[in-house]
């Protein structure tokens, strides 16, 4: 089967899979960012209970395998009465896992904002919450964007695991095509190329654009 013929035959299925991968990516990214910000702030909190929850969360999700976490969320949680559809279980697992890494990025970036900025905001009598929101976070955001670019690429690639709980993403479709045609090189080759295109030609430029836009708005070139 020629490559052209292969694409003609299986292109639509690969495209369907890619769309699901993109959906999984976006939803997982939202979960990851939300968790990262929450856990990152909690880890910096002076409240020991909040801090403890964040530390335990980060340790568990960073210290164990994403695949095992995915299986836990999909296969084990129902035993405790929490049943998630496979689509939701997929992006939740990926988002929760990468969110734990993201928490460290958030924490590190906040701590990297120069001490003088805290002091200046403090000297203006700003409340801690306002200080964080108005002064520290906007600056921390700029500091953490480049490492977030890396993390989001990891997250995109991590979504391939959701195929293992039968979410019909790009990886799932490739496996199906391979199973029915034995055209392994074409099936997995197509997946490889599509993941690369998503990461290299969509995600990376998008992050770079975001960074330049923010940097220009903050005029710190």
């Amino acid at each position, binding site marked *: 089967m020629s490559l052209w013929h292969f694409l003609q035959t299986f292109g639509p299925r690969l495209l369907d899979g890619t769309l699901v991968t993109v959906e999984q990516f976006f939803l997982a990214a939202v979960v990851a960012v939300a968790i990262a910000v929450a856990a990152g702030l909690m880890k910096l909190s002076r409240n020991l209970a909040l801090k403890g929850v964040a530390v335990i969360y980060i340790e568990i999700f960073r210290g164990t395998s994403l695949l095992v976490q995915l299986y836990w969320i999909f296969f084990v949680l129902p035993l405790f009465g929490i049943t998630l559809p496979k689509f939701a279980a997929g992006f939740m697992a990926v988002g929760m896992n990468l969110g734990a890494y993201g928490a460290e990025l958030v924490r590190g970036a906040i701590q990297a904002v120069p001490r003088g900025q805290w002091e*200046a905001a*403090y000297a*203006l009598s700003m409340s801690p919450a306002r200080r964080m929101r108005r002064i520290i976070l906007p*600056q921390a955001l700029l500091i953490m964007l480049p490492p977030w670019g890396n993390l989001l690429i990891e997250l995109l690639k991590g979504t391939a695991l959701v195929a293992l709980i039968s979410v019909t993403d790009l990886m799932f479709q490739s496996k199906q095509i391979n199973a029915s045609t034995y055209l392994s090189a074409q099936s997995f080759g197509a997946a490889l190329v599509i993941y690369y295109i998503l990461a290299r030609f969509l995600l990376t430029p998008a992050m770079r654009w975001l960074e330049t836009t923010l940097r220009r708005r903050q*005029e*710190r*070139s």
Partner: protein
Amino acid sequence: MDETADYPLELTGEDVPMVRFLNVTKRYGPLTVLDKLNLDVAEGEMVSVIGPSGSGKTTVLRMLMTLETINGGVIYVDGKPLTHMPKGGRLVPADPRYLRRMRANIGMCFQHFNLFPHMTALQNCMEGPVQVLGLPKAEARARSEELLEMVGMIDKKDQHPSRLSGGQQQRVAIARALAMRPKVMLFDEVTSALDPEVIGEVTNVIRKLVAEFKLTMLMVTHQMGFARDISDRVCFFYAGRIEEQGPPDALFGNPQRERTQQFLSAVKDAG
């Protein structure tokens, strides 16, 4: 902590100073940086603090800004306790809310300006009045523009700090602090990080403040000539204590203590 319980809840009577340090002690671990400091600053007075590094002079300003906690004594601002609050007829260490309310009376300029890099000069000045004092934007803008005009930075009001020189940034920082209408202004080595040729533009603004506003000011500085020119009083700090203080002409012209003489002659030799 308990010894302060019997300190006055409020300073009353005539001649209540704008700032009073009453037996204020500051320790970092085993190191005593300030030992039972007593210092009054009258309303409208300009006091310069000089001394060798490590003498505790910057700590004095940082304690007054409540950037540092204190380990003994009480600081009063405008007659009311700053570091403590009255509770059940006694003084107890102030909680964050009380501190936040009280330190709105105090403005501070830093050695490294610390302007917010993601805001323009004008936005820097408006941030406190809008976010903390709750002023309407138009009013905060008018107030900020007036102050930027005063420090000679109105032309650059829409520039971000990265586009401004050190002297310009420091002038914006002064306007930003003044926009909160503080009763006390603190200047912590505000010219130390500046290139020599722009120091004048910052000291001129401070001169103008002294001349035109009846603002209480405390200034830590290494510029002896400037301190001599504009201060009402100069305090020489040595090893966590006020070694000598007095009117600038007396302190610089005829220092009484040996440490003061040594310090002043060392400074003179250096430049």
